[in-house]
C-alpha cells in the first residue's frame, strides 16, 4: 500500500461528508496512480460530486485524508490545487473575455508565462487556431470542452479532474476527447473522471469505482468488475442483450430504480 501511495497522484482515505444531518459520503477511500484514468461512477445523488468537490477543495469534509501529489488539500491547499487541473461540470468563464484572454488569465493564475505566439500554438494543437479572438459562448459544445480541458492542463498538472466531460457531445467530439485523455495518460498524468456513460468508462478507464449511497461498493478494472459480477442474478436480470456489459453490472449493483 505504501508503495502504491508513493506513486499515487491522488490519495483519498476515510472521507466523510455531511450536509447537516445527511451523510453524503461514507468512509470513501481510493487512489489514482500516475498514468492512470480512474472513473468514479454512480447514480444521481450517490456522492460523486461531493467526493469530487472535497478533492477540489470546494467543500470541507468532516473527516478523512485527501492528498494531491502528496500535498494535503487542507494543510497545503495551494500546493495541492496547483498540482491539479480541474474541468468542472458547469464551468463558465467571463463572457466578456476572448479565448486567448481566458487562457492568459488561467496561465497567470498558475504562474505559467505564455506569449501570444505560444497561445496561438496551443490553440492550433487543439484545432482551434481561429478561436483566439472568439468568446467562450461562441464556441460549439465540443470546442468549449477542448478549451476547458486545455485550461485545466495549462500548468501541466499531475492530477486532472474531469467532471462529466463528454456530456452533450456528439460521437466525433467524444472520441476526440477520449484520445486527448489517453494522450494525457501516456504522458503520466493521473485522471479522475466522473461519467454516466458506461461505454466511456469501459472504453478509457483503467479502473473504476462504483459509488452508491455515499459508499464505494465496487472498485477494480472494468473487465474484472464484469467478470466478478457476471453470475449475480441481479446483473443477469439487468442484461438486455445476453452479453454482460459494465452497464449491466452497474445497474445490478446499484438497482434499477431511477434516482432524482
Amino acid at each position: 500500500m505504501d508503495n502504491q501511495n508513493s506513486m499515487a497522484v491522488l490519495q483519498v482515505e476515510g472521507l466523510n461528508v455531511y450536509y447537516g444531518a445527511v451523510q453524503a459520503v461514507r468512509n470513501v477511500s481510493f487512489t489514482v496512480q500516475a498514468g492512470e484514468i480512474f472513473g468514479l461512477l454512480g447514480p444521481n445523488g450517490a456522492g460523486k460530486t461531493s467526493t469530487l468537490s472535497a478533492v477540489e477543495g470546494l467543500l470541507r469534509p468532516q473527516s478523512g485524508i485527501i492528498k494531491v501529489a502528496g500535498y494535503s488539500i487542507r494543510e497545503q491547499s495551494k500546493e495541492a490545487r496547483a498540482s491539479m487541473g480541474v474541468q468542472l461540470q458547469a464551468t463558465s468563464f467571463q463572457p466578456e473575455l476572448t479565448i486567448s484572454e481566458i487562457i492568459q488569465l488561467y496561465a497567470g493564475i498558475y504562474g505559467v508565462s505564455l506569449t501570444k505566439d505560444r497561445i496561438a500554438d496551443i490553440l492550433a494543437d487543439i484545432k482551434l487556431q481561429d478561436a483566439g479572438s472568439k468568446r467562450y459562448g461562441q464556441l460549439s459544445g465540443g470546442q468549449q470542452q477542448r478549451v476547458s480541458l486545455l485550461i485545466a492542463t495549462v500548468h501541466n498538472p499531475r492530477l486532472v479532474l474531469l467532471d462529466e466531460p463528454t456530456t452533450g457531445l456528439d460521437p466525433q467530439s467524444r472520441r476526440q476527447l477520449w484520445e486527448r485523455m489517453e494522450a494525457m495518460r501516456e504522458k503520466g498524468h493521473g485522471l479522475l473522471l466522473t461519467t454516466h456513460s458506461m461505454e466511456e468508462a469501459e472504453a478509457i478507464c483503467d479502473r473504476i469505482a462504483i459509488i452508491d449511497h455515499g459508499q464505494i461498493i465496487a472498485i477494480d478494472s472494468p473487465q474484472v468488475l464484469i467478470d466478478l459480477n457476471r453470475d449475480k442474478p441481479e446483473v443477469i436480470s439487468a442484461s438486455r442483450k445476453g452479453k454482460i456489459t459494465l452497464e449491466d453490472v452497474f445497474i445490478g449493483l446499484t438497482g434499477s430504480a431511477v434516482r432524482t
Partner: protein
Amino acid sequence: MSQHIPSSATVYSALLRADLTVQWRNRRASLLVILVPTVILISWKGLIEKFGGAFVLSNCMTVNLIAIGLMGYTNAIARDRDKGIFQRLRVAPTSAWSIMLSRLTVQLLMIVLNTTILFLVGYNLDHIAMTPGGYAFGYLTAILGGAVYLSLGQTIVGLIKNPETVNVATRLVYFIFIMTGMFGELGMLGKEIQAAVKWSPYGTVNRIVSHSLVPATWDHDSTIALLATIGYTLLFTLLGIRWFKWNSR
C-alpha cells in the same frame, strides 16, 4: 518533485488584468452609471446659489457611489457566482481575498474615474470650483463613501442567491436611497424623514463628501458622520462576508 506556486502578486495581477478587461468591455453599462449623477449635476445648476456648489456636487457624487456599489459591483458578483466563474477560480491556487481584492480594485478605479468626471462637469458646466485640498479630500471621502455601498452590495449578494432577484433588489434600494436621500435631505418628505436620512448611509456619506469638498466646513458633526460611515462599512462588510456563499446552488 515540488510544485510551483505562483506568488500572490502574480495571481492578483492576472485577475486584475482580466477584471479590467471585463470592465472595459462593459463600458456602455459604466456610461449609464455615470449618466444619472451627471444629469442631476447639470439640472441642479439652479440650486447652487441657494445651497452651494459643494452640496450639489456631493449629492451627485453620492448618487454615483450608490450606483457603482449597488448596480455595478453587486450584479457582477451575483452573475459570476451563478455562472460558476468563482468556483472555477477557486479550484486554482487563488485565495478568496485575491479574487475579491481584484474586483474591488476595479470598483475603486471606477470611483476615482467617475468622481473626476463629476469634478470636470461641475467645473466646466456649473462653474463649481474647489481648492486643491478640497478636491484631494473629496477623492478620499468618495472612496470611503464608496466602501459603504460596496459592502452594502456584498450584504445583498450574501442574502440573495438568485441573480435576477439581486438585480431587482439593488435597483429598488438604489431608487429608495436616491429618492428618500435627495428629497428627504431637502426636507421635502417631512422632518422625521429628514432626521432619519441625516444618519442613514446616504446622509452620512453625503455629509462627509460635502464637508470634505470645502475642508474649512469640516466640524464635529462631520467627524461623527465619518465614524458612522466607517461603522456602516464595518457592519455591512461583516454581514456580507458572513452570509456570502461562493456557489449559488
